[in-house]
């Protein structure tokens, strides 16, 4: 499952993420928090900024070029589950001011206590959800 080369890929991919966050902060002074970027881009009450539009277009373009069709559908997920999960992630990340990128990468990189609490909370909660869905519900079924 997890051999050495896939660990190196993980580190390398992570380094690219760190590089992107550094580039954005060093040039524009802005934090690469994706829920904040998307949230502001679609916000009904605040004007979007051009770099935020660029950032989302960059993400979409990379996915369109590099991911094969049907990729990322490895986990069979019912449409209702996908929609509910999306709603929770959208609402929750705005309420909590960040997601895995804003709190998990950028916040922890500046040793923010708020981000540490947020990251610990969403990881623990998600682990509980996975434990229930994979080990409790599966056992019942």
């Amino acid at each position: 499952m997890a051999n050495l080369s896939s660990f190196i890929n993980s580190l390398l991919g992570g380094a690219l993420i760190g590089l992107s966050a550094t580039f954005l902060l060093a040039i524009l002074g802005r934090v690469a928090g994706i829920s904040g970027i998307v949230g502001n881009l679609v916000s009904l009450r605040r004007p979007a900024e051009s770099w935020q539009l660029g950032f989302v277009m960059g993400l979409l373009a990379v996915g369109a070029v590099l991911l094969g069709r049907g990729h990322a559908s490895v986990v069979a997920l019912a449409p209702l589950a996908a929609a509910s999960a999306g709603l929770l992630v959208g609402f929750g990340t705005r309420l909590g001011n960040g997601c895995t990128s804003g709190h998990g990468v950028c916040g922890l990189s500046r040793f923010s206590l708020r981000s540490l609490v947020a990251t610990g909370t969403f990881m623990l909660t998600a682990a509980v959800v996975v434990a229930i869905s994979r080990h409790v519900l599966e056992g019942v079924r």
Partner: protein
Amino acid sequence: MNTLGKFLVGLVAGAVFGLGLVVAHMTDPERILGFLDVFGQWDPRLAAVMMGAIGVHAPFVFWLRRRGKPLLANNLSIPTEAPIDRRLVIGAVLFGVGWGIAGYCPGPAVVSAGRSGTAALFTVSMVVGMWLFDKLVARTPNDALRELRTISIEPLLDDTRR
């Protein structure tokens, strides 16, 4: 920097970020759920992604905060260290539930949205969730105050706060 320049900076940052997510297989929900599945065959590789990202980013954050300003803009818009409140924790719990159900967080969902129907549905729902937040929560005066605080400029290495 003008609007087009900022757009291009955002485009490059988004593309590099997305490339990192793809290289690290973060667009594969199974990789995420495998990390979260601590009672199953635990897959530690997401932790390596975080270490790679923080390992590269943290020294530059330290340098930029000491410098006090970015290279081509006037201010570092780093969130100030606000108190840990209910909203932070409740928001993180709601996000965690959604993340645990789908194995998608916002970045990988957007990257996969053009290629996977599930990711597209998730992403559209996520935007609806953000709109709901805008409609239901963000319009209170309390929130306006909070946003001011969040977007304000970090004072130069204010060590008294830590």
